[in-house]
Structures are given as structure tokens and as C-alpha cells.
């Protein structure tokens, strides 16, 4: 069957490409929890929020500054600065990352899952109702972190409502569209944070 060879090659390219992109870009992704720990530990970090003005003022990661791609072209920062980016449009975030790398900054990372990850893992960590002991220990750690930032840990969450991981390395959650993040932010503001 003559289609087999090109399909084989396509699979090899796509599979190999998957491994390559995650290996090369993986080191430049940071989890929201890791960022939270950095901020809490007082390690100097420049956090840039790449979303719109309104969204930024609605809710943003503590200590983050708003920036556009244009800002990042011109902004001068210490060469050795640790920079973390996040936004709700992954394409824009990766562009900004590339931009800063090209400008010569060595320590640039981004939150792969954007603000949603911060909300779901740091601001409102959830403990499933039927948690395993490992999950419970992890939750205790995250709850302490969450309270530092004025967050609200959630207990007894039904398993079906847990932020489910998609191929998560270490239990992170998959990206969510900005609509869902906006709804979550609105809910936080209603409860008061």
C-alpha cells in the first residue's frame, strides 16, 4: 500500500517533534506552584502579565506587572534577571518568550497554563473527597502556600470536579480558554479575595 511510507514518516516527524519541542522548550516552562514558591521565598522575579488592561486589573498574580509585546521589546532589565511570563494566549506568550531570549536574557520562563493554573493550583488548591494519602500531603503543602497569597483552599471537591490533568507531568492542569478563566476571576471577585 503506497500510502504507508509517507504516513510512517509523518508519524515519525510528529512524534519526534513532540519529544524535541518538550525537551527544548520544557526547561523554559514554569509551574504556577514553582512561581509561587519563588515569590514567597523572596527570590527576585520579574513577572509579566501579557493580557489586556481590564483583565489585569480584574485579577493578576501578586507582584506581576502588565506588559505588551511592545513593552518587552524596549524594556531594559538586569541581564541576570529572572523573568516569568504568563497570559491567556499561548501563542503570544511563546512569542514574548522568544523575543526576550533573542534580546539576550537567559532566565526567561513562562506559565504554560497561564493564569488558570495559578488560580486552580495556588489560589484555590482543591482536595478531592476521595484523596489518596499522597494527594493529601500535596494539598497540605499547597494550602499553606495558598494562604500566604490570600487564597482559599477548597476541601471535599468531588473527583469529577477536580481540575483534571492532561498529560500532566507532576499533576499540573491543562490550558483553559480565557472565557473560563474570566468566569473564575469573576467568582473570586464576588467572594472577595
Amino acid at each position, binding site marked *: *500500500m503506497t*500510502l*504507508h511510507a509517507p*504516513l510512517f514518516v509523518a508519524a515519525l516527524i510528529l512524534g519526534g517533534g513532540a519529544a524535541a519541542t518538550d525537551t527544548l522548550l520544557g526547561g523554559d516552562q514554569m509551574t504556577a506552584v514553582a512561581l509561587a514558591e519563588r515569590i514567597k521565598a523572596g527570590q527576585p522575579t520579574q513577572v509579566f502579565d501579557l493580557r489586556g488592561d481590564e483583565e489585569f486589573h480584574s485579577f493578576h498574580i501578586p507582584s506581576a506587572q502588565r506588559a505588551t509585546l511592545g513593552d518587552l521589546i524596549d524594556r531594559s532589565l538586569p541581564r541576570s534577571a529572572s523573568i516569568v511570563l504568563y497570559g491567556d494566549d499561548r501563542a503570544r506568550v511563546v512569542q514574548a518568550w522568544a523575543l526576550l531570549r533573542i534580546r539576550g536574557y537567559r532566565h526567561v520562563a513562562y506559565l504554560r497554563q497561564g493564569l488558570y493554573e495559578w488560580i486552580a493550583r495556588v489560589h484555590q488548591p482543591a482536595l478531592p473527597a476521595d484523596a489518596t494519602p499522597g494527594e493529601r500531603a500535596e494539598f497540605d503543602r499547597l494550602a499553606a502556600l495558598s494562604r500566604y497569597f490570600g487564597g482559599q483552599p477548597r476541601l471535599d471537591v468531588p473527583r469529577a470536579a477536580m481540575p483534571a490533568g*492532561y*498529560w500532566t507531568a507532576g499533576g499540573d492542569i491543562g490550558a483553559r480558554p480565557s472565557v473560563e478563566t474570566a468566569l473564575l476571576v469573576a467568582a473570586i471577585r464576588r467572594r472577595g479575595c
Partner: protein
Amino acid sequence: MTRYADPYLAGIGIGAVLLGAYALAGQGLGASGAFASVAAAFTAAAVGTAQATASPAVAPYLPDGLASPLRDWLVWELLGVAAGGFASAWSAGRLAWTTERGPRVAAGPRLAAALSGGVVMGIGAKFARGCTSGQALSGGALLSVGSWIFIVAAFAAAYACAPLARRLWL
């Protein structure tokens, strides 16, 4: 009668359908869950909905009482599977009232084996939370550890049992 299609191309097609399921329904394909739904409805019909929902094994499948299978995603998916299978066989000239069996076994024993095999698979699918469609295929593509455990266990067991069932198939 048309020849069977290339398995790789059929597989790629199924993979695309599965992607469609992820995109449109937020879940993968499945099959055994539909059977569990139907079994739950039978139970409710036999002993009454109240007693059926008292069982923790049956209750999850009866959110709408006796009518639950009619609102079950997997049940409608399987109805589609049957329809699609029929349509494909019809267009390929492969429809036939018959029993597929090995050359050395009669229809009766073959059907008894099919029934028994179904019983064992039904129990296995309950423990595994799925079957080849739901766990092996859909869960496997999402790299779920339990799904891969299932794949390895199922293939290993099938190969191990093959020599014992030669009379049935060869």
C-alpha cells in the same frame, strides 16, 4: 464482496474519530459502559428502581431511573456503532446470518463460548473501568497509566489463553 480495508488507514480514521470525540464531547469513545447502563436498567426493571439504586454498583447508571440508558452518551454511541457497522457491511456485501467459528467447532459450542467469553469480559471490564474502546484506545491515547496496564494485561492474557482454545478457532 469487497476486501477489507487497510488496517492502518482504518486505524488512522478511528484515531480521527476519537479526536473528534475529545473535541466535541470532552471524552473518548467507549463501549462497556453502555452495557453497564443497560444492565442497570434491567436490574431496575426486575427489582424496582428503589432497590436497584440502593446498590452502589448499579446506582451510578440510574440517574434518570429506568429511562437512564436513553440519556446515556455511550448507549447512543453504541447504537451508532451498530448502525455504522451495518451500513459498512451492507455496502461491502458482508451482511450474513451466520456464526463466525473455527472450522472444527459447531455453532452450538461456539455460541456457548461466545456467551461465556462475554461474561468473563463483562466482569473484567467492570474491574478495569472500561474495555478496548474506553481504556485501551481512549485512555491509552491520553497516556493514562491504568489504561496502559490494561492494554498489557489484556494482550498478555489473550496470547496466553490462545494455545488453550485452538480447537475453537483453528
